[in-house]
């Protein structure tokens, strides 16, 4: 049974020899002999993949995990190398990170911040992970990001779309590749204007929690800026399953667009209900009634089935993109698993590579070195065109996709079609934008 | 003046007049039996005494104070203890613990937050409970779980629990119901002994005439919610109204 490679801290592999009775005072669990938290001293480095494996986002979590496994394979020189071939930075050589073989541990966030922190802590304290990544909700991302800041490891956020993650809750040790509510609003508005005109009355249904608020605010302000009127915005409980009583009054309100600021199960149900109520067959104010879903996810779109047809939304990435990076990723993921990757898988894979690359460029796993290497880092070839990791808030700025539910899908994966690739300039905002205000990045914490 | 004075008590359940103008006076240190055929209102009356039911009319005074509108535990604290038809004890607890609870209640009142003292360290209580168990011949069973005792022992324990509070009035609700003859006789002897040894007033509701006539100093006969007669046992035996109520014979 001693075949496991999953040893704890790198420290131990060498210091175990130090013999009995050596007591070292430490803060958190970084050994004082180490320059920073969980410094890998052996021939391997351990990354922590913290994804939802149980709970409603388990399928998304499973896809994230697949992406991480693929990334580890590529980093260690296996497979076809995937995005390492198209990545503009060429620091990665396929020999692990800084010559150390990449190993990983996994944990279950359960999409609960307590559970997510518990499993992240066990990865840091028990398994000696030097970086934590993954997650499928903003609540979890914010909670784990704060933990990583305290513990002194890097957090590479998975799927988290709320402005807060790199807004009021931003942290120096945390980085987000995924786009956010503001960007969704900014990308969607021009397309909506083009498709539906500037004289529209919008009715918002908003999930009654932080992400819902930021998304509603973002979409509202960007659509109002182009002339739309917001008729009403109603909050719906997270635990709601039947949205009929929220959707039925929409037609009476005189609105001609319904914006569903929902994600996951909420989105599937509210969209299904809205289509059932025949909103899309109606004419209001002499115009066709339309529905908009600001944040799309292919996995969730699948849950809503045919109801997504023709409905606009935004997404971080989609496998039908034809740039070299995307093609390379779809190819290696698809060949390994037999189906195309989701946006969650893409963002997680990219995050893992970006982290590894930053370590290579910094020449160290020290979080402060990694932070420095990532701040202001510009890269390309990872699927979203030219991308900038902004130093001020650790948010990635890249093109955002506006997509639409496909009318004639050819397979169960082919649900969305790209309507427009919104250029990065259009979704960029000032770091102190009011929607992002209130947080402080702080300084990097190496933990030791 | 009796210790328990019942005046003009009436209680209606829907269309049924369960109690009608009940007048009753229980003398101190006597044993007063209330008898009557099924449905005569005996249990209803008892429930009025202990605060479980509030009558529509009339008054019930215990030692000069009204019991009406008080909860069962307040009435118990006034000095009335009740023995149930089927023994009501704390089945999950040991016999000793069963015994200690009423002793605590007597000393500490209806609620006291003594949450950190050890209960077995309270010498007064333990002593009193043990004496009571000895007296009732239950000392050997002190460690037993109460629910695993025989029915007769449960009855004994329940009576012991009531007596340990030194009640001024002990209410017995058909204490021998469902018992074999031998057990019944034991119970009668026990109650007789209690009557003799203690300053206590007993009110008993009973079906079994044998029990009633062995114990009671005074008997009230209830029929259809109304008291027919109240008298000494010897006068009750041949009373025509009683025979009528029990046997349906017409008085001539």
């Amino acid at each position, binding site marked *: 049974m*001693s*075949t*496991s490679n*999953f*040893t704890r801290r790198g420290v131990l592999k060498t210091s*175990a020899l130090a013999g*009995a*009775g*050596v007591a070292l005072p430490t803060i958190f*669990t970084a050994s004082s002999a180490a320059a920073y938290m969980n410094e890998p001293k052996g021939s391997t480095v351990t990354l922590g993949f913290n994804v939802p494996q*149980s709970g409603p986002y388990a399928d998304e979590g*499973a896809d994230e*995990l697949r992406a991480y496994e693929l990334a580890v394979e590529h980093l260690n020189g296996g497979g076809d190398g995937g995005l390492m071939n198209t990545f503009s930075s060429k620091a990665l050589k396929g020999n692990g990170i800084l010559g150390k073989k990449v190993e990983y*541990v996994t*944990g*279950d966030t359960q999409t609960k*911040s*307590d559970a997510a*922190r*518990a499993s992240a802590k*066990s990865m840091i*304290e*028990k398994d000696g992970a030097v970086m934590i990544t993954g997650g499928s909700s903003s*609540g979890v991302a914010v*909670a784990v990001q704060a*933990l990583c800041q*305290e513990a002194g490891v890097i957090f590479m956020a998975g799927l988290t779309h709320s402005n807060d993650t790199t807004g009021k809750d931003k942290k120096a040790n945390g980085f987000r590749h995924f786009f956010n509510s503001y960007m969704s609003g900014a990308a969607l508005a021009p397309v909506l204007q083009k498709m539906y005109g500037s004289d529209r009355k919008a009715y918002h249904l908003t999930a*009654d929690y*932080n992400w819902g608020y930021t998304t509603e605010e973002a979409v509202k302000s960007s659509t109002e800026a182009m002339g739309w009127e917001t008729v009403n915005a109603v909050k719906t*409980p*997270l*635990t709601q399953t039947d949205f009929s009583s929220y959707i039925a009054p929409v037609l009476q309100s005189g609105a001609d667009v319904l914006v569903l600021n929902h994600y996951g199960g909420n989105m599937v149900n509210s969209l299904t209900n809205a289509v059932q109520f025949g909103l899309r067959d109606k004419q209001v104010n002499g115009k066709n009634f339309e529905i908009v879903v600001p944040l799309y996810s292919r996995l969730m779109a699948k849950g809503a089935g045919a109801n997504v047809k023709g409905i606009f939304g935004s997404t971080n990435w989609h496998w039908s993109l034809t740039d070299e990076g995307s093609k390379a990723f779809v190819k290696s993921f698809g060949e390994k698993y037999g189906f195309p990757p989701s946006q969650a898988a893409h963002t997680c894979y990219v995050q893992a590579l970006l982290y590894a690359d930053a370590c290579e460029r910094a020449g160290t796993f020290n979080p402060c070195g990694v932070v420095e290497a990532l701040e202001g880092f510009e890269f390309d070839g990872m699927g979203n065109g030219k991308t900038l990791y902004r130093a001020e808030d650790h948010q990635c700025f890249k093109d955002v996709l506006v997509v639409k539910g496909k009318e004639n899908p050819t397979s169960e994966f082919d649900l969305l079609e790209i309507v427009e690739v919104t250029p990065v300039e259009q979704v960029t905002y000032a770091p102190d934008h009011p929607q992002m205000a209130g*947080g*402080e990045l*702080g*300084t990097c*914490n190496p933990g030791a | 003046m009796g210790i328990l004075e019942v005046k003009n008590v009436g209680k209606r359940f829907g269309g049924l007049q369960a109690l009608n103008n009940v007048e009753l006076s229980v003398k101190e240190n006597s044993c007063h039996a209330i008898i009557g055929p099924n449905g005569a209102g005996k249990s209803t009356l008892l429930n009025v005494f202990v605060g479980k039911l509030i009558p529509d009319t009339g008054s019930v005074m215990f030692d000069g104070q009204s019991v009406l509108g008080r*909860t069962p*535990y307040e009435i*118990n604290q006034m000095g009335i203890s009740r023995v*149930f038809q089927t023994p*009501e*004890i704390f089945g999950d*607890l*040991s016999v000793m*613990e069963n015994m200690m*609870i*009423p002793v*605590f*209640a007597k000393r*500490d009142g*209806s609620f006291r937050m*003594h*949450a*950190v*003292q*050890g209960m077995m*360290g309270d010498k007064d*209580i333990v002593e009193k409970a043990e004496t009571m168990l000895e007296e009732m011949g239950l000392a050997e069973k002190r460690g037993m779980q109460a629910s695993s005792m025989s029915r007769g022992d449960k009855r004994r324990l329940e009576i012991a629990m009531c007596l340990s*509070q030194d009640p001024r009035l002990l209410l017995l609700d058909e204490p021998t119901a469902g018992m074999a003859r031998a057990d019944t006789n034991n119970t009668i002897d026990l109650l007789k002994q209690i009557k003799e040894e203690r300053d206590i007033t007993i009110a008993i509701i009973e079906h079994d005439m044998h029990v009633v006539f062995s114990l009671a100093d005074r008997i009230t006969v209830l029929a259809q919610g109304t008291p027919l007669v109240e008298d000494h046992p010897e006068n009750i035996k041949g009373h025509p109204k009683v025979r009528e109520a029990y046997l349906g014979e017409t008085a001539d």
Partner: protein
Amino acid sequence: MLGLDKKDYTLLLIVAGLTMLAPFILNPFPEGSGLAQFNAGYPDLMQRFVIFGIFAIGFNILFGLTGYLSFGHAAFLGVGSYAAIWMMKLLTTNVIPAMVMAVIIAGLFALIVGYVSLRRSGIYFSILTLAFAQMSFAMAYSVLTPLTGGETGLQLKIADARILDGALEAGEQARANLFGLNMSSSYEMSVGSWLFTFNTGYYIAALVMLASFYLAIRIFRSPFGLMLRAVKSNQNRLNYTGLNPRPYTLAAFVISGMYAGLAGGLMVAMDTQVGPERMFWTASGEVVLMTILGGAGTLIGPVLGAGLIKYMENILSKINKDILHQWFAFLPDGLEDFIITLVYPFIGKGWHLTLGIIFMMVVIFLPGGLVEGGQRIAKLFKGKDADEDGAQTKPAE
């Protein structure tokens, strides 16, 4: 000793020994071995063991003694957590005021909820507590966002007021501490290939747990505890014995709410973050599971149950397919795959399934929980004479 009889004192000593030596006991396997996966002796999990131990001990004072099944106890834990983190944000990062405030606020909240809910009994009581807890959760998640941080919860921020603390140095973070002693500081000791971690936060939490456990023993053995058991056994008789059950049950409810608040406060002290899911009804369900799994109405049971569930949640859930492959690598390929296919649904992401099955088994075959299991095993060894012993200790053990 300490006002306990010999048996209780021994139990307390055993628990004290176990908690103090936990870093050794929970790390039985050497680092680097395949079994190291099963080590649980790292600070976070050890902290969780004792914190949820406290929560379950408190819950047991209500459920185990009075039989009132509350389905909303997580609300008190959550309220305690919010109170604690606000103390740390506004006043000081020292954990003492935070914990005190957590206990007080949770107690007050329990008083209100208990006062209303205890007007009913049985399942009506359960539903009332559930309703209060679900309302707390829903409000904390949504409309009370300014107070609770909503979905993302509350954390310590650099910009917090902390009126009693001095300003942070540049680059320094606000950390929970006890008069400057950092909760997250640890001593590490390696012995051969074993590594043991002694964490300040854990030991503080463990001491609080021991105190709570001691208090629980005292309550169990007190006249008050007797009355609570009497409530469970026969409320009618209690009434006719001149005792008012309501203040007793309310006091038990408030005490167990305060225990929950203490657990919530400690959670914040160990890990300075609060999220509303802490109050969701499944979290209340979890403490019920812990108590039943360990043995309701017993002293040590709830602690064992809490340990088992947290162990599964944190250790079992981390075993992924890769690890399985490594374990069974010695088998021929076909057999290896077959065994992994058999085992896989029950570990890693399937840990909920295992939990459900174990839980059902315990309820079906061991209604007295793990403690009953232990007693049965002990009986097997001791032979018949243990029988009477078992019967006598049953109500209070």
